[in-house]
């Protein structure tokens, strides 16, 4: 790539063109941040999304403070593996040692939920980051170059879209073997299509902008134009959509773990906690709800997490869905 020779003073909208003294990305980032900030401001004003933010902030804190909230016992090699207190399969109710009780095989529920929060964020962020990356590259290339490249890429996208997604991820995870890394790979492989399409649409619009024409006229090469001028302009809405999808990804991963093909056994993972509760919902003969805590706490946690994202997403749709604009 030839360095720093593009002159695009003519282009002014919607992103500031790079000035000679400043790094291009710094400018773009500033613009991006300005956009984001205006969105955030609106979201904070809305009581629903504000509470969503508070919920997610709480989860973030829990994830960050996990080692202090639920310190792993000594000689415990992998903090993500929930410590077992004994080997009996029968769950034990909440007690001083185990504030939320233990689930099947004496896994501490509290510990599992705390560290599971980390797991959830890790899955969500990594998966979204990479799906976005794949989606951006494919969508941008497809939209910018058009023609047969576009045709081929869009057909491939269509094929991936036609796949029943849960089955596809299940098959891929089974093929790759058990483990969260495999789950993440499966979600990335079958998750990028929507972003690719969105980006492509935005790129189609953005490439008509005058400053792109100018860049092209100035002899910049295609990749440079694409990733320095077109993509940054097309990326914002997709970024927002994607970040709101974190909740969905976490839910999907939990579903796989629930079906017994996600996280390794004993790994701090919400879906797995619910899987462990699965066979205990009927209680004992004396007390039909004897094991309520095995499902209640994990169910509550995962629902609360998704609720946080949904609150924000819901308000966000209200603000930005053109169909809804002004209805509030």
């Amino acid at each position, binding site marked *: 790539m030839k360095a720093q020779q593009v002159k695009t003073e003519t282009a002014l909208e919607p992103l500031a063109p790079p000035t000679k003294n400043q790094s291009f990305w710094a400018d773009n980032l500033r613009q991006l941040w300005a956009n984001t900030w205006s969105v955030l401001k609106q979201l904070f004003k809305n009581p*629903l999304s504000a509470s969503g933010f508070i919920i997610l902030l709480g989860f973030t804190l829990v994830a960050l403070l996990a080692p202090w909230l639920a310190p792993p016992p000594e000689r415990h090699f992998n903090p993500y593996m929930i410590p077992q207190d004994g080997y009996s399969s029968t769950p034990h109710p909440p007690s001083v040692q185990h504030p939320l009780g233990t689930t099947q095989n004496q896994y501490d529920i509290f510990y599992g939920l705390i560290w599971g929060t980390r797991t959830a964020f890790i899955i969500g962020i990594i998966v979204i980051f990479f799906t976005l990356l794949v989606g951006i590259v494919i969508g941008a290339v497809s939209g910018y170059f058009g023609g047969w490249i576009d045709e081929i890429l869009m*057909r*491939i996208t*269509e*094929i*991936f879209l*036609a*796949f*029943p*997604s*849960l*089955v*596809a991820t*299940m*098959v*891929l995870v*089974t*093929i*790759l073997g058990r483990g969260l890394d495999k789950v993440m790979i499966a979600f990335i492989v079958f998750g990028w299509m929507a972003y690719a399409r969105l980006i492509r649409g935005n790129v189609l619009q953005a490439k008509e902008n005058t400053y792109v024409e100018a860049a092209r006229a100035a002899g910049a090469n295609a990749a440079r134009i694409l990733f320095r001028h077109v993509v940054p302009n097309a990326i914002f809405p997709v970024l927002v959509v994607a970040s709101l999808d974190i909740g969905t990804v976490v*839910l999907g991963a*939990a*579903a796989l773990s*629930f*079906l*017994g*093909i996600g996280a390794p056994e004993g790994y701090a993972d919400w*879906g797995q906690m*619910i899987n462990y*509760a*699965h066979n205990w*919902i*009927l*209680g004992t003969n004396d007390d*039909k*709800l004897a094991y*309520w805590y095995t*499902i209640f706490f*994990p*169910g509550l946690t*995962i*629902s*609360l997490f*998704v*609720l946080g994202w*949904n*609150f924000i997403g*819901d308000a966000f*749709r*209200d603000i930005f*869905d053109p*169909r*809804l604009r002004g*209805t*509030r």
Partner: protein
Amino acid sequence: MLAYIARRLMLLPLILFGVTILIFIMLQFMNPYARLKLYVRSPAELKGGTDQLDRLLVKYGLNDPFWVQYGHWLEQVAQGNLGWSETAKTSVLDAIQNRFPATAELTLYAIVPLVFFAIWMGVAAAVRHNLWADQFLRFITVIGTSLPIFVLGLFLLMICYGLLYRHLPSLFEGWFAPGRLSEWAQAAVRDSKQFNSITGMVTIDAILNGQWRIFWDALGHLILPVVGLSFSGWAYLQRVMRSSMLETLRQDYVTTARAKGLPEKRVIVKHARRNALIPIVTLVGFTVIGLLGGVIITETIFNYPGLGNWTAAAAIQLDIPSVLGYVLFATTLLILINLIVDLLYTVIDPRVRLI
């Protein structure tokens, strides 16, 4: 429009080809021995030793390069044979035929109340825009979308089996029970002399046969899965209906109607609601697709013998012929539903043209 349909349908084989070959490509990431797990189900069956495993590899052609394997499969499909489903213990075609009616029944029962409730509540919320009813419904729907099926399903089971069963055992003589039918009803349905299976959907067949007891039994078994399946879809649809309704309420013709002095109720029902329904049609299509995905978990939780239950087992056991069969079926269904939605759209909204 015919050209449009033809073009879409012509894409179908291409997509099916792509989807299936994708599965075979994925399989390349797997050690062929690992794929034997479908045929050697537990360590106890490993008795013949490695020789036996090698024989199995040859027998099922798992060592061949993937295009050879794909070629074999394609050849089979060309002869109208989708292969053998080890999970269902029948041919894949039979498995789909056997199970789809059950899933269709579940989906049907889920979607009908779902759509009507969503429309009704969406309208109710829009009309009371920003009043407490609207806020309340909004709250409920957000919570609804936040309860994953597997959490909701287990809660339902716990409440119905754990609490209700204890206190109202008579309720369980046929209601809320797991599975699809009680034992006596299953025996009756199996008896082809007394019961004529026409659609494969038990409730409908029961009505056609005039067997009301079976009908009620089947219905009782459907309640929990239906609730579990439709809950999140309902919430989403309600949201869209609400916003669509809000939009139409601000249209000029609604204002005109009001100005004419028509009663408010009439304005809402006759003028606004009708037009607000348009976007719902597309969404119903998507919801059906969503439900077909949702059945995988719902059927597993409620032990309901449908396509989803089978597919989940097949995917986990890597029963590739079954997975391929299901994917072919589901993909075709998905594309057809999308096509129908597109066509409906042109019918409802003449402004839309398909090119």
